Structure formats: C-alpha cells, structure tokens
C-alpha cells in the first residue's frame, strides 16, 4: 500500500513530464546536434562535429545580436516605467475600478498578437494623425517617418509585452501589507522615502519576474521587426527565421538558436538561484522547492 501511495505522484506527473521531455528537452538535443553538422540543403547535411558553426553564426550576425539586446532592453525599460505606476494605481488606488482596469490590461490578449501589431502599423503609418502630432512636436523630423525605424520596432515590442510586466508587479503590490506604508509614514518618512525603502524592496520579486517575462520574449521576437521595422532593424529572431525557413541553412540556424537558448538558460538559472523557483510560478513563498 505504501509503495503504491509513493508511486502516485509519479503516475500523476508521467503524461505531462513525458510530453515535455519528448517535445521540449529532446528537441533541444536535436537542435544542438543539427548545429554541429556540415553541408547544404541540396546536398544533405552530415554529422561533422563542426564547432565553427557557432562562431560563424555569431560573427556573421553581430549587428542583429547587438540590436536585439538593445531593442529588447529599451522596450523592457519603457515597459517597466509604464507598468509600475499603472500596477500601483490599480492595486492601491483604483478602488471599485480595479477589476475593470485589470480587465483592460489583459484585453489585448483577446485579439490576435499579429493583428494587434498590424494595427500599430496602421496607427504609425505615414499619413496617420499620430505621426503628424509627433512631427508637430519636433519628435520626428518633418519629412521623417516612424514606420520602418527602430523606434517603431521598440514601440511594438513595448506594447506587445507590457501585460507581462504589469501582471507580476500588480500581484506583488496586491499582496503587500499596506500597513507597512502607514508604518513608514508614522515614522516620519516622506512618501518618496517610504516608496524607496519599503514599497520598492518588497515588490522587487515582482519587478524581477516582470523584467524576465518581458525581456525574454522581446529578445527572441521577430514579428515586430518584420511588420513594423524596415531595412536595418532585423533582430536575431529574423535571422533564425530566415535561415531556417527561407535559406534552409539548418546548421547555422540551429547554432544561433542554441546560443540564444544557452544565454537565456544562464540568466534564468542565476535568477532561480537568487529568487527561488517559486518566484517564476507566481509565489515567493515556496523557496523550499
């Protein structure tokens, strides 16, 4: 009986764990293996343990790699600056509007990601009032465009991943004991001091989760650069997509994807070490796991 009981969790885990192992972990192995092959699509690829694929993939696309990190980093920073005040207002000031505002935050998810991005293409088109206003404010040169620039790509990334920044920050603010803010004030701290010394440190896990959840998809994105960008705005995602699906240079494509995965794996493992695995799943309490 006891052995049977002890096996229960494994039976419960088996279907999901097998699915994830077969279709997430094993594919990573195949990607690594493909990255070491040599040859061309027409002549076929052979296993050759060609490590130079990795350095070639990186050195051939330095611009796109750097650009991806700059775009994703900028978008993450802007998203944080928008998301924190918004989450704060919803969690602590909105009162009975809270549910409605939360609803508005997740509303973009109810329309297709691609259509939202294409809508931004309409909004930022050359003849749109938004661009006229930006030109009038001298933020964009009089004959300049917004579409097909790096700015448009960053704007698209910011917009599309903003909810991923708002929700974890909101969750950590909502869980916070507001008595602590009162206590700070009772101890004659100014609002700024209370915010910097009490609120911000307590909600730090939410910020870290939001930053990761925004930065990771943004750095790998290619839809925004494809639809809103122009020449000279391609990101790593565009390169990987084109190498796999258009040029069919599988080894180089796999090598580049593999390097990207590796970079992110390192970041995530460091993060888990610091914050505990619970933080990624939405609660900070379960650090024992």
């Amino acid at each position, binding site marked *: 009986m006891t052995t049977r009981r002890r096996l229960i969790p494994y039976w419960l885990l088996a279907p999901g764990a097998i699915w994830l192992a077969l279709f*997430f972990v094993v594919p990573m192995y195949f990607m690594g293996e493909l990255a070491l092959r040599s040859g061309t699509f027409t002549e076929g690829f052979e296993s050759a343990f060609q490590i130079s694929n990795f350095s070639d993939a990186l050195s051939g696309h330095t611009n796109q790699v750097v650009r991806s990190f700059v775009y994703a980093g900028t978008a993450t920073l802007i998203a944080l600056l928008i998301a924190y*005040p918004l989450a704060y207002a919803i969690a602590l000031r*909105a009162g009975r509007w809270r549910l409605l505002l939360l609803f508005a935050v997740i509303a973009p998810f109810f329309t297709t990601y691609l259509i939202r991005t294409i809508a931004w293409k309409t909004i930022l088109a050359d003849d749109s009032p938004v661009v006229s206003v930006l030109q009038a404010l001298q933020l964009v040169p009089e004959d300049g465009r917004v579409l097909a620039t790096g700015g448009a790509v960053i704007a698209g990334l910011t917009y599309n991943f903003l909810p991923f920044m708002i929700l974890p920050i909101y969750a950590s603010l909502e869980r916070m004991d507001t008595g602590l803010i009162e206590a700070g004030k009772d101890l004659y701290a100014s609002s700024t001091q209370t915010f910097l010394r009490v609120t911000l440190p307590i909600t730090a896990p939410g910020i870290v989760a939001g930053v990761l959840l925004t930065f990771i*998809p943004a750095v790998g994105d290619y839809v925004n650069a494809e639809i809103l960008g122009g020449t000279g705005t391609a990101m790593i995602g565009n390169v990987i997509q084109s190498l796999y699906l258009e040029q069919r240079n599988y080894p180089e494509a796999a090598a580049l994807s593999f390097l990207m995965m590796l970079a992110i794996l390192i970041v*995530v493992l460091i993060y888990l070490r610091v914050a505990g695995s619970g933080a990624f799943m939405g609660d900070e309490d379960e650090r024992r796991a």
Partner: protein
Amino acid sequence: MEAATVSSRAGSKPAPARAWAWLRRNALLIFAGLAVLYMLVPIFVIAVFSFDTGNAQGELDFAWDGFTLEYWQNAFANKAVTESMVTSLELAALATVVSTAIGTLMAMALVRHEFFGRRATNLLIILPLATPEIVIGAALLSMFISYKVSLGFTSLFIAHVMFSISFVVVVVRSRLIGFDRSIEEAAADLGSTPLTTFRTVTLPLLAPGIVGAALLAFALSLDDFVISNFNSGTTVTFPLFIFGASLRGIPVQVNVLATMLFVLTALTIVLVLWQQRKAKEMASVRPEQEGQPAQV
C-alpha cells in the same frame, strides 16, 4: 485622510493653484488612465476599421473611406479566412483538452505530494516559460527534420500542447495551494472512496482554476504564430493566414473576425468571473443562515 486635508486647504487658493494641486494629487490615476487607453488603442483601430469601405485591398492606411456593414454581413465570405479560422479553432480545442488534463495532474502531484525529483520537475515546467518561442519552434523543427516527419496538423498539435502545459500547471497550482483539504477529509470520514471524493468534492472545487487554465491554453493556442510558423508545413492557422496576407493585402474580414473573437472572449471572461463570484458567495453562506438548524 491626507488627501482630504490637502483639498480643504487648497480651497482658499486661486484657481490655477487649485488645478495644479488637483493634477498633482491625481497624477497617478491620470497616468493609469492614459496607460490603459494606450493598451486599448489597437483594439479600437481593429474594430473601427472593420466598418471601413475603402481598404478592401488591405491597404494599411489610416484614412476613413466611409461606413459600411458589408464585411460584417459577409464575415465568412472569404473562404481562406474562414478555413484558417476553423483550423485554428479545431487545433485550439484539441490542444486545450489534452494540455489541461495532463497539466492539472502535474499540478496535483506538485502541490499534494512529496516526492524525489521535485526540483527537476519544477525546472522542466519553468524552462519552457523562460524560453523564447522562436527557440521552442526551432528546436521542434530540428527534431522533425532529423526524423523526416512531415509537418502539418499533428506537428502543430504536439507543439501547442507542449507550450500550454506549463501555463496550465502554474494556474491550477495556484488554485490548489489555497485549497482547504479538510473538506476532502470530511468526505473520507463519511465513507467516500478516494475516487468518489475526487469526483464529487475535489474536482468541483478546483473547477474555476481548471476553467481558467483551459481558457488560457485556448487563447495561447489560438494566438500562436511563431512556433506554428516553424512547424505548420502546409497547414494554415488563422495567425499564419494573417501573416501571409499582411505581405499581400489583408481582407477586411480579418478585422471583422478579430473583433468578433475579441467580443466573444471578453464575454466569456466576464461570465466566468461572474460565475466564480457567485460560487464564492454561495460557499460563504453558512448552513445556519439558510435556516437549517444544526442537528446533533
């Protein structure tokens, strides 16, 4: 409290100063309002331009050419759009059922059981969430290439279940953590078998979490472009159709269907929230309040 004293003091000041004080006091809420507006702008654009006559060729201009109901009346007239939508809905429904079932089981194991390999399991669930979609798509494609598997509906199904599982686990898990196990113990004390207890007590109480997870999985599947683009072969889902069309010219029906989808999803969410609130109210009513004296 503080806000009230500030405003009464501001009452004696001149109008511009009062306006400035009001602005400062409400700056946060004004900012929040603007931010929310920003989040909703593209949705308005999609809805408004589904009534525009001019852009039948899919020109992405901001010009308003005139109001028409034509595209709403012929919402399903464009065969390619409708077919891709049907494919997407079938795929999403199948992937949702499978991923919700196996994800729920995983969440039960993680919350309710102590076992060896817990840390590894957590990592296995977290990693897909932390991997850019393009890497997931590329890795799956690499495997399918190596095995020379032909791509299509099946490969899409495999991929969609795969990336939904982690989200299902996270949602159901958070519901399970707040679960009062004494109710189950009570059922067991009353002679219920474990299976009956699960069916009649655990599952109904977990239902809101499971429904939420299923909705999320459905939305993710319906919306997925990047992973699908790598593993679709010749199968065309709704997002894939839109991407293809965005290079040639988007039929206005796309805006119509997107608006329909938005309204339907929003209504579903409202209904689920309303249902959950009602369930909560019912759960909080105590037997005595229903006029049933406790019998000893």
